[in-house]
């Protein structure tokens, strides 16, 4: 006896049967793909601990639960690693992007259809790029998933993942509007320019210099972007989505709600790891980070240091990390400042790097100089007579020994290796605490030298192991739960 009495429809939630009908539905659907960016394990918190915390830009990151702790020690394993939950979060983004792509494609044409598909492809490309960078070869899933007794997603090669990333960004590049075409309430959506830049980044990471150069030139030629006058404008709430911004993770909120550690991705607030700010305040690189890296004292150490380190509240201690941080009195653990993931200065420095590696060192210098020139202008050192007397580019070692005479603004000694070092240095201080350092060190092959720590007795502990730590481990649960993977698919060394 079938009857209506036992037929109950969920009154609280829209069902999949009635969704994906209208343009409005499609917009709501694609918004959810962005929401994962704010996930607790991505930009809300996890990225702070992993992509900033595991680098030589912090000292000891302190205890944030065992999952992060093992990563700071480079003792993470497939069972125990904060990167496991980052993996999960990235695939959440992919799942949602796939839903949009598969369902919106089937919808009848409407005005924003191509844009929405472009956004979904952009974001899927972004999530896969993160996976390719940090895990190498991973399962590529492009279809909707159905409930099953077995899930079989074999591992693709890293090259195949980058190919997928390129395909997604290319689709996005052609189907997304320019940044200037977005109206006020759409600010923050993926743009054609952002797609070009990320495509360039994926080429750069693959050492495809020529293709990378083309992509970055496309961005520059679009005329959509320029550096802000003040470096610090890239880290405050008042100047979000400015002329330098290609793609940023959007946060908002008035800071009154109590911060909770729920794992949802709909949080409005960015987590500030304030308890862990002792990161940069102790440890062997303390003096180096603040007193040498950013230049000599007579230069006031420049606007980049001022925007990176400063005072929290009015505590008189100017050695706090303040990038992206605007303290509010109610709860100092959260900030509503957008996290910039792709800035124009990044495009310029990646462009310079590609040029330099492509044998076009003089052209590279020009690009680096644009980035540095903002610092000169802002520092009041615009006049070349103020800085041309610094004739040498000092090594990092010399800097740590307290010799600050060679503030690395000067750009002579223009061979490829010299400029490579300049670019590396510039990337470090330009993007400190912007989640780029770990990947940069690994792709440059510099991680082994950089990621060491001194123990209490002054012995050097090698944290980074070559041949292993270039990649995060594939989560243990993935290998035992995904029938497409076997233990042999685990990344080397784990």
């Amino acid at each position, binding site marked *: 006896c*079938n*009857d209506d009495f*036992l*037929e*109950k*429809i*969920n*009154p*609280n*939630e*829209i*069902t999949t049967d009635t*969704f994906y009908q209208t343009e409005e539905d499609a917009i*709501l*659907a*694609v*918004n*959810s*793909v962005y*929401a994962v*960016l704010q996930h607790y394990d991505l930009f809300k918190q996890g990225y702070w601990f992993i992509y900033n915390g595991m680098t030589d830009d912090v000292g*000891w990151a*302190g*205890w*944030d*639960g*065992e*999952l992060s702790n*093992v990563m700071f*020690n480079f003792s993470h*394993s497939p069972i125990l690693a904060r990167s*496991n939950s980052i*993996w*999960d979060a990235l695939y*959440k983004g*992919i799942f*949602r992007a796939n839903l949009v792509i598969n369902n919106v494609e089937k919808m009848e044409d409407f005005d924003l259809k191509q844009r929405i598909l472009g956004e979904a492809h952009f974001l899927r490309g972004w999530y896969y790029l993160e996976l390719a960078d940090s895990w190498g070869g991973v*399962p590529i*899933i492009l279809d909707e*998933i*159905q*409930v099953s007794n077995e*899930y079989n*997603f074999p591992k693709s090669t890293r090259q195949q993942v980058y190919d997928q990333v390129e395909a997604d960004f290319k689709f996005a590049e052609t189907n997304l509007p320019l940044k200037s075409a977005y109206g006020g*309430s*759409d*600010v*923050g959506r993926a743009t054609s320019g952002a797609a070009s830049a990320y495509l360039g980044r994926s080429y750069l990471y693959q050492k495809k210099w020529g293709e990378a150069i083309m992509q970055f030139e496309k961005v520059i030629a679009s005329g959509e972007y320029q550096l802000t006058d003040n470096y610090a404008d890239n880290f405050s709430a008042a100047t979000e989505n400015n002329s330098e911004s290609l793609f940023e993770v*959007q946060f*908002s909120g008035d800071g009154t709600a*109590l911060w909770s550690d729920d794992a949802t991705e*709909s949080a*409005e607030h960015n987590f500030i790891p304030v308890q862990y700010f*002792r990161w940069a305040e102790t440890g062997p690189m303390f003096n180096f980070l603040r007193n040498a890296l950013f230049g000599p004292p007579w230069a006031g150490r420049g606007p980049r240091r001022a925007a990176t380190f400063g005072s929290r509240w009015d505590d008189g201690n100017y050695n706090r990390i303040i990038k992206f941080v605007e303290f509010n*009195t109610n709860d100092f653990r959260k900030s509503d400042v957008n996290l910039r993931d792709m800035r124009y200065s990044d495009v310029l420095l990646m462009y310079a790097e590609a040029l330099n590696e492509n044998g076009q060192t003089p052209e590279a210098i020009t690009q680096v100089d644009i980035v540095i020139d903002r610092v000169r202008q802002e520092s009041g050192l615009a006049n070349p007579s103020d800085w041309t007397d610094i004739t040498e580019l000092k090594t990092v070692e010399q800097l740590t020994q307290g010799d600050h005479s060679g503030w690395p603004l000067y750009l002579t000694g223009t061979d490829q290796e010299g400029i490579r070092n300049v670019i590396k240095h510039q990337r470090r201080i330009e993007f400190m605490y912007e989640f780029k350092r770990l990947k940069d060190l690994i792709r440059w092959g510099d991680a082994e030298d950089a990621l060491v720590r001194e123990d*209490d007795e002054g012995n050097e502990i090698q944290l980074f192991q070559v041949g292993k730590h270039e990649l995060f481990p594939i989560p243990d*649960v*993935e290998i035992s*739960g*995904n029938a497409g993977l076997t233990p042999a698919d685990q990344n080397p060394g784990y």
Partner: protein
Amino acid sequence: QVSKKISISGQVTASEDGLPIAGVNILENGTNNGTVTDFDGNYTITVESNAQLVVSYLGYKTQTIKASGSTLNIVLEADITALDDVVVVGYGSQRKKDVTGAVVSISGDELTSNPLPGIDQALQGKLSGVTIINNSGEPGGGVSVRIRGEGTIGNSDPLYVIDGVPIVNNVNSEIPVAGGSGKVSNPLANLNPNDIESIDILKDASSAAIYGVRGANGVIIITTKKGKKGAPQFTFDNYLAIQNVKTIDLLKARDYADLIIEMFDNAGEAIDDVTEPTNLLDDSFVVDRADWQKEFFKTGITHNYNINISGGNEFADYSLSGGYHKDNATTPGAGFKRYSTRLNSNFKLGKFKFGEAVFFSRTVNRRSTFQAARSQIRIINRHAPTVAVYNPANEGGFNGPGEGDGYNRWNPIGLAELTDNVVRRNRFVGNLYGEYEIVKGLKYRLNVGLDAVFTNGSTFIPRYVFSEGQSQEDPSLREYSAEELSPLIENTLNFQKDFGNHNLDLLVGFTQQEYKFSRFSAFSNMLQSNNLQTLNTSSASAQISIAGFDDEWAIRSLLGRVNYNYKEKYLFTGNIRRDGSSRFSEANRYGVFPSFSVGWVLSEEKFLNDHKFINNLKLRFGWGELGNQEIPPYGFQSSLFTSANYVFGGNLQSGITQNTLANENLKWETTVQKNIGLDLTLFDYRLNMTLEYFIKDTEDIILRAPLPGSIGITELPLINAGNIQNRGLEILASYKGSAGDLNYELSANASFLKNEVKSLGIGLPLEGRFPDDSGPVLAVIREGEAINSFFGHVTDGIFQNQAEVDAHASQSGAAPGDIRFKDINNDNVINADDRVILGDPNPDITYGLNASFDYKGVDFSLFFQGVEGVDIYNGLRFWNEGMAEMKNHSTAVLNRWTGEGTSNSVPRAILGDPNFNRRPSDRFLEDGSYLRLKNIILGYSFQKNTLSKFADGFIKSLRIYASAQNILTFTNYTGYDPEIGTGFNQGPGVANQGVDYGIVPQPKTFLTGIQIKF
């Protein structure tokens, strides 16, 4: 023949209380000449001289007395054989001697002679196979009731049936406090224990199968009091209780300061930052300003009043009662009040019978809000003794940490006292029945019931200041209102007939029940004043948010039962039930659940007839299948997650995505249970024993099994996966005896239980983390282990020097003074692969011991309750002995390692805990076995002849008593209380069973009361 008639009159009274009994049959033996006692127990009868009078009354021993004299007072003795006791088995009742399933019962008298605020407490330890553990010592707090173990990963709660109405078990109308524990409501909190006539618990499949899909976790049938024939009888009960709780030794100011300074020293850091406790360097500051525990725990006072009026005659009976219970709790911000009233009446008119049983109650439960009760204790434990609780200069009157105090914890006493968090619940449960006897033995019954729960709650946070940076700038208010309605219709047809030696009892029925829930809530973050607590007083600039939520399910069932016995010697019961539930897709909507049980009364056989000391010996076997549908109502449907929001253009915009994978194939979870039992009654019904052995397999368990991350869903889909087995032995024994005027009863029960997860989904274990979701794994549900087993590293003393560190397997962060963890897999590195199953929180044995005595009106009883073979993870020690954070600690850390040879169990103090000494390991795992003197009661009932001297004998009985609860506990457990219930869920499915987060302990209660009958 000369006949000489004589007239005899007198009064019939009961031996146990001396009260007159109305309606007693008095018959002249061998004749039809008889009479019945009146309301006052008086009778007059004219009989032949030397005639024999047969005096009978249900529940009392029938007496045959020689008629002599003109006045003959008769005292009836209660029939203690108990075998004729009736057991309520669902849609009917059976004599205990005919029962073939595993059923345990407790009478209302046993509950009320031992007054306790709730039925859950009263049942605890009394019955074999039933484990009841309070989740909190807060009044009205949650309780976990388990019948024959943790049967499933989802909901293991039994079904409650009150006067035939299956009630809504998980009242979900409450909005949990932010960051608080999940399940805090108690389905029994609305019931007044004084109203209970009996509780019968159906443990095995063959008895619970009549409840089909709702019986898998056992069924608790509660029958409320009915009126007895006789003049109106008034009963008045009152008691007053005083409660207090245990405390833990915490560090005083000097020791606290030394510890924190040592932590910094060991970490190689100076205390020089404003966020650090610079004050502790100043000796004049290191002064005890607060004993946080002392300020937190109060003496609680409980009042209870109850009044009952009952009576009846052969056409009608009634019972009406009212009760008031108030408990102002041992912790700030908590309290519980219950107003209850109940009416039962029955009417008989020829072949028709009508009646109703209704109760209405209102509970007002004030609860602490700040991260709920369990962690409130933890926060109390960690507050600096150097920081005062109160500061009259602050708005609100409470103090907060200042600059140099080195921490930012909000004053938990202030939060609890200032925040007004109240849940008000009105519950109506009632049924109305009509019965018609179509022909003799064939009865039709219509039963209409309703369980209605109306809940409203509010959380008001006033404006206050604790310190700079710790303040509530504007008062905020959340209000919500919810209703839950669950109407029930049952049609049953019952046929009962004896064909010679063949006794037959047939039942068929059709029932349906629905559940509708809706809730509305509103929140304003800015009220105009601390004194006006309504949403209407919101400021113009307030942010107001509103929300609403609806839920529905329905169940429709056909049921049938046959009871057959031959000469009351060979017994058979068969049940079948077909259930349809809205919680499953159309393809899997219906389930059929059969069961049967057989019994053999050996004592009726000739070969045992000679053994007069055996009064009853019965062997039983049962088998049955039961369903479980306790899953979210729309679990199989695909639905969308509508809060995947993101910010565009500076404003939050909605986002919608699919939250989980739909599973149209979701079907019933099935429990197959086999039960073998033995009932034995010996020595003139003085010794009663019951033995049961059972195997309970739960198959196709509905759970959210872990999936590989690449699936990418936010919420794991519900699937049928896994199999859990519980098997166990249950023993119940009691002995009633007397020596002169001394009557005594000794009883004991014990349940031995073994739980094992036989298989689990695609094989991935379920994991529960500690201390929070991002912490390491502490508990797992894993194939081959008991459910919710503890998992972690094994400690091996403390590194005394660097040589020991170097000699050991590579252990990240280790230094002298840190804990050495065992290299289980001998790979020379300590990592996640070195974790093992450490123990499990499921008790091997739960038991209860009861002894009661009465002597000339003095009654005395002792009740012990205990568990054996249970592990508790003393999570409180994670903080109290962590020595990693700038918080206060317990005195256990005074024995910490400070140099070679100083300690081999308590590690060094170091900020940040680089070795992660606190990781899940056997370090904080403790034996949670305990034996507790749950209750000790001394009472005195005034003798009848004493009472008769007052007020013309208006008072018929009067008892005064005093009792003490939880006063003695034998345990090695070092936390507040070894009674740790099931906590809130963290991972998918792993309950925080046996994890002590700092639960509000069971109070020691001293109680005195009076019971009067008029």
